[in-house]
């Protein structure tokens, strides 16, 4: 009792904690309020009306690249512009993630190759691409390499039938969906084919557990899928046709066109992020204990099989979380497209639209919300994954 009275209240940790929190809260609220006040005053002085009304206004500029969302000059609103920006960010991010994963795994495995030259090659690649600013790489590929060195449309590189590369970009055959019942039949065939594939793989696994013999389930599955699709193409009248890009007088027309900035950005993001993923892959593979390698060697597995069946499945647990983080970085880095005018979220929305409307506050807030929402989603996925794959120690 006496000891309680001898501690003055300002030495009580609970009171101190409360006081500290209250002070921090007041300071933050005061700072935010001051910023808010200043902003309101500044906006009033400049005569800017802030609000979401401009989203319904018609955007007075043309958007060059929008494969999925239609943009009509003089009709489409700023909201459409935002959606197109988002769409283009997603396009380059998805393409970049695919490319960077492929490059990263390849280089990461090369880095650990027993062949000295190959692992040095991988090391040089990683050390060069990782240590040079991405913006510089993007500008290097676009301004110094692709733009001047790729030929004009008339002399396009023909990479394959209907695939052209020139200084306007990459042209691919564009799938055109036929109307009528054919396209539905095709969709159905693909769905059934995929289900058949999964069933075959499961069946093969079960057979292996039961008998020790593994039938080639994947091959059967793929054959079924291909057979079904071929069947649809034979029975129905052109469910899916390809529009091949054609060389016109000055330019290629038709086909799917990936403008050169998109191509350069994709290339730079792939090579840059690939170098980082390669390091994650290397670290993951090295984290698998050496006993596993020795055990699979003593089982007589050749190196590719050993990697595929023993090492990589265990390494993936270590590789996937940092790699997902790299995917997030790649998506955020795609905003560097501003430098080469690929119309993604930051270039189109926080750049062109902002300059046109002057609605800095709303536009930046939406942009931030998109990126922060994305990164929070990523960290939720990561936490979920980490919980799921925690090693079960026996």
């Amino acid at each position: 009792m006496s000891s309680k009275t001898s501690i003055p209240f300002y030495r009580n940790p609970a009171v101190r904690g409360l006081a500290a929190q209250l002070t921090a809260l007041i300071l933050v609220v005061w700072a935010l309020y001051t910023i808010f006040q200043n902003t309101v005053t500044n906006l009033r002085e400049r005569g800017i009306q802030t609000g979401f009304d401009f989203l319904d206004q018609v955007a007075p500029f043309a958007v060059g690249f929008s494969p999925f969302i239609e943009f009509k000059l003089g009709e489409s609103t700023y909201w459409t512009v935002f959606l197109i920006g988002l769409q283009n960010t997603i396009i380059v991010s998805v393409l970049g993630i695919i490319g960077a994963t492929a490059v990263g795994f390849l280089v990461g495995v090369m880095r650990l190759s027993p062949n000295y030259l190959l692992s040095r090659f991988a090391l040089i690649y990683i050390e060069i691409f990782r240590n040079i600013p991405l913006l510089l790489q993007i500008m290097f590929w676009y301004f110094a390499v692709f733009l001047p060195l790729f030929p004009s449309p008339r002399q396009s590189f023909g990479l394959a039938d209907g695939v052209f590369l020139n200084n306007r970009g990459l042209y691919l055959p564009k799938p055109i969906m036929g109307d009528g019942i054919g396209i539905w039949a095709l969709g159905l065939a693909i769905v059934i084919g995929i289900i058949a594939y999964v069933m075959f793989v499961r069946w093969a696994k079960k057979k292996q557990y039961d008998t020790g013999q593994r039938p080639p389930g994947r091959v059967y599955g793929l054959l079924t899928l291909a057979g079904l699709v071929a069947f649809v193409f034979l029975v129905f009248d052109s469910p899916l046709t390809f529009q091949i890009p054609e060389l016109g007088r000055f330019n290629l027309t038709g086909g799917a066109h990936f403008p050169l900035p998109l191509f350069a950005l994709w290339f730079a993001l792939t090579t840059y992020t690939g170098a980082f993923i390669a390091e994650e892959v290397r670290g993951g593979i090295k984290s698998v204990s050496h006993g596993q390698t020795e055990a699979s060697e003593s089982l007589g597995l050749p190196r590719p099989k050993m990697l595929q069946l023993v090492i990589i499945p265990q390494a993936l647990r270590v590789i996937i979380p940092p790699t997902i983080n790299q995917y997030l970085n790649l998506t955020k880095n795609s905003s560097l497209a501003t430098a080469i005018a690929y119309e993604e979220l930051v270039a189109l929305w926080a750049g062109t639209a902002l300059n046109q409307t002057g609605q800095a506050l709303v536009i930046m807030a939406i942009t931030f919300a998109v990126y922060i929402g994305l990164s929070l989603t990523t960290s939720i996925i990561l936490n979920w994954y980490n919980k799921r794959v925690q090693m079960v120690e026996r």
Partner: protein
Amino acid sequence: MADAVLFDKIESRPPPRSEGGPLDWIRERFFGSVTNTLITIVCIYLLYVLVPPIANWLLFSASISGTDRSICDANPDGACWTFIKVRFDQLIFGLFYSANPDQLWRPITVFAVLAVMIAWLVTPATPNKREVGAFALLGFPVFAYALIEGSLLGLPSAPTNEWGGFMLNISLAYVGIVASLPLGILLALGRRSELPVIRSLSVAYIEFWRGAPLITVLFMSSVMLPLFFPAEVDFNKVVRAMIAITLFEAAYAAEVVRGGLQAIPKGQFEAADALGLSYWKKMGLIILPQSLRISIPGIVNTFISLFKDTSLVAIIGLLDILKTAQNASRSIEWKGFDIEAMIFAAFVFWVCTYGMSRYSQHVERSLDRSKRS
């Protein structure tokens, strides 16, 4: 016959061929198996195809003499380093100093002090590390600002908005790391705090800045920072970029420091509590000295990415080395030498970041060793 020989005596086998000689190493690493041999052949072929023309273009056929483009135009098979030589001051020190070559000693002195300081800090056996470190954090920025800006010392003034070239990249990165570290440490402590309000404020701050790409933060600093402050407060572009980079970097520094805090065994916290140390004494004397030491590689790594990211200020119109290089290769005198300009800028960045990453790996290894022993 009873004790008949049960086993035939076998002659002992010769000892295995000694391994580890250079010939064995070559056999193992180049021709270990059929695939290995094939890979070696493909690699050698690639080297043969790639290296001679690149080396030829970069070095053997490159032109460096003269002061104008005529010599480069006469030699299209080689790189044009004459261009870089002529524009070197501009690329490294920015427009102000390349226009005032008599003042060049100022940034050069600062660079020299910086180099000595870094060498001092990374060499293991030098005395007075603590004092030099304190100078690096507090004294050096003031010294560098005074000398490069100049008006404080009565020298011709080079206002911050005229800073440029690689000097600007270094200044932005240095300010970014020095100013963001204390903020980052506070945020990390806040995130680990038991007080819910402090913790959520720190988490909100960290997640906000880590969520957005730096380029949007820089955009925000250039379009919105003026809105946030009263009209009479006016920062120039460089200072705005510095503020944005500091706020942004603090969130990343906080996460690295937090990683270090989490690696400290619980016993250390409990021991400090048992000694009756106050929160700040516990952190300042027991926890942070240990955790910051662990965090050094992580801090260097964030610094590397910050350093690379300083090139983004080119997008908001600052004349850093990248923008200067680009402008130079678009000027009338040197139009068309984009590749040389970019390669030079890339090389300058690469030397710095590669050095730092080697250092961080070295620290990591020595920390590993000390943990094991």
